[in-house]
């Protein structure tokens, strides 16, 4: 059975902005999906409908058999613990240490008082330390996050998502603020996680070349509508034009040819 089922998903902001227009697709466990589209297409909104950071206007989203649109309170929080999220701007608490930020990923599993006081079990701490080490951050474990580089911060963001022991990671432009080296490390890390742990990954990217290289399935969005859903190899030039509009499409194809050569 599909892990994520999106059915006729529509999202309006206020009365007028139609951010997502009747989107339907399924994601099987273990997939690595790249979501591409120009800025303002609705990529971020799509991810936020899956973990219900925004309310859904109509249609259905089912994750792991649970219908998301009507979830509230504790049930919604329990659902969110199973989905990790990674952000363009990392969204760490800069004043806290790496391990404190990583352990935030456990809050959804804890009672209010334990969460408030930051009382984590030894097992949770061991798990966090192991993940921090596996991402090459053991030397930074007790550093404050405002002392880290962008690439390191994003790895802390990934670690925070992983301690949730999620079934799926939602990544919203994870490399948009990084230099090419750091970007490659992050994409390789996500790819590794997907391959070794089988965690399903949905990643928003505005760089088509990166999406084509890493994703094994591409979803193209333009103005809230799904305009492509399939393998990266079958993504034709016309379809890139369709996703990005003609002028941007030219530029992207140009890059693609140079990259292929």
């Amino acid at each position, binding site marked *: 059975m599909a892990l994520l089922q999106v059915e006729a998903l529509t999202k309006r902001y206020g009365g007028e902005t139609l951010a997502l227009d009747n989107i339907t697709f399924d994601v099987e466990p273990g997939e690595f999906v790249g979501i591409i589209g120009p800025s303002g297409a609705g990529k971020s909104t799509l991810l936020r409908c899956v973990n219900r950071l925004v309310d859904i206007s109509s249609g259905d989203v089912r994750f792991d058999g649970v219908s998301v649109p009507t979830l509230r309170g504790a049930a919604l*929080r329990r659902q969110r613990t199973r989905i990790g999220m990674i952000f363009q701007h990392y*969204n760490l608490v800069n004043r806290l240490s790496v391990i404190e930020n990583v352990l935030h990923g456990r809050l959804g599993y804890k009672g209010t008082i334990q*969460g408030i006081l930051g009382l984590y079990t030894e097992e949770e701490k061991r798990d966090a330390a192991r993940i921090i080490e596996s991402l090459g951050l053991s030397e930074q474990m007790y550093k404050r996050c405002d002392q880290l580089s962008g690439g390191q911060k994003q790895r802390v963001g990934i670690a925070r998502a992983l301690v949730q022991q999620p079934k799926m990671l939602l990544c919203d432009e994870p490399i948009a603020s990084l230099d090419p080296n750091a970007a490659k490390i992050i994409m390789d890390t996500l790819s590794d996680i997907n391959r070794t742990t089988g965690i399903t990954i949905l990643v928003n990217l505005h760089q088509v070349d990166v999406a084509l290289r890493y994703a094994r399935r591409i979803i193209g969005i333009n103005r809230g509508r799904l305009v492509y859903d399939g393998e990266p190899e079958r993504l034709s030039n016309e379809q890139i034009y369709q996703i990005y509009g003609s002028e941007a499409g030219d530029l992207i194809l140009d890059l693609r040819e140079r990259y292929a050569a």
Partner: protein
Amino acid sequence: MTLPEPARRIRVRPLTRANLSIQATLIGLTLLTVYSFTTFDSRNIELEQAVRDMFDNFRLLLLEPRLKNVSVLEMLHQLFVTAGLGLLTTIFGAIIAFFLGLLAAQNLAPRWLTDVIRGGTAFIRAVPTVLWVLFFAVSVGLGSVAAIIGMTFHSAGYLIKAYSESFEEIEPGVLEALRASGANWWQTIFQAVVPASASALLSWTFVRFEINFSTAIAMGATAGAGGIGFDMFMASGFYLDLRELGAFTYAILAFAIALEWGATRLKANLGPQRH
């Protein structure tokens, strides 16, 4: 190459409504000041004598301080009573303001609630502390209890505004990240909002303590709240002893400097670390 001669002078400051009204206000105030000087009634005052007297008094006050009616120990005790009044009302105010400040922050609470609390605290702040003390004195009588309640009231109003604005400074993405991981509201507050705004909260609390300390002196002199303010009131109004008043002034000054030093040290420890 020579630049072409500019046709018109280039204005650096745009001629906006705000700039115009600032200029109008300044000109108005200047005219008022000049006018008020011309209307002073100075018939019975010998200017030379008055200036000499004033410097004489300053000399007594600042250069020849000494205690007479109270001992040093007594003075220190009264100073701590006053500081205690300032500290107590700051702490009470801070505790109330922490919780109401969360509910007054637009990124943490629904709009109707923040509007209600902001409206209420704006009213509390608009009325001066002294009036709140007198207001509560109606029900509990003039004295330290009225001073504590009134000062707490105004401190809370002040700190709710300051705290809630500090809470609103947090990056929205950080709140979103914790919500996305399944954390609830209280967990998000204590794991993200409080650590991110701790040093701002601390500075505001210190600023308020300094205000409350000086208010506490005034309350001792006028509202029967005791402390060094009452001794100063006695020295200046009852014994007419400027030298003793000078000693009290220096004691307060020393205490205020010590306070400032402590605040700076504390903030340095909490502020952003350098490599």
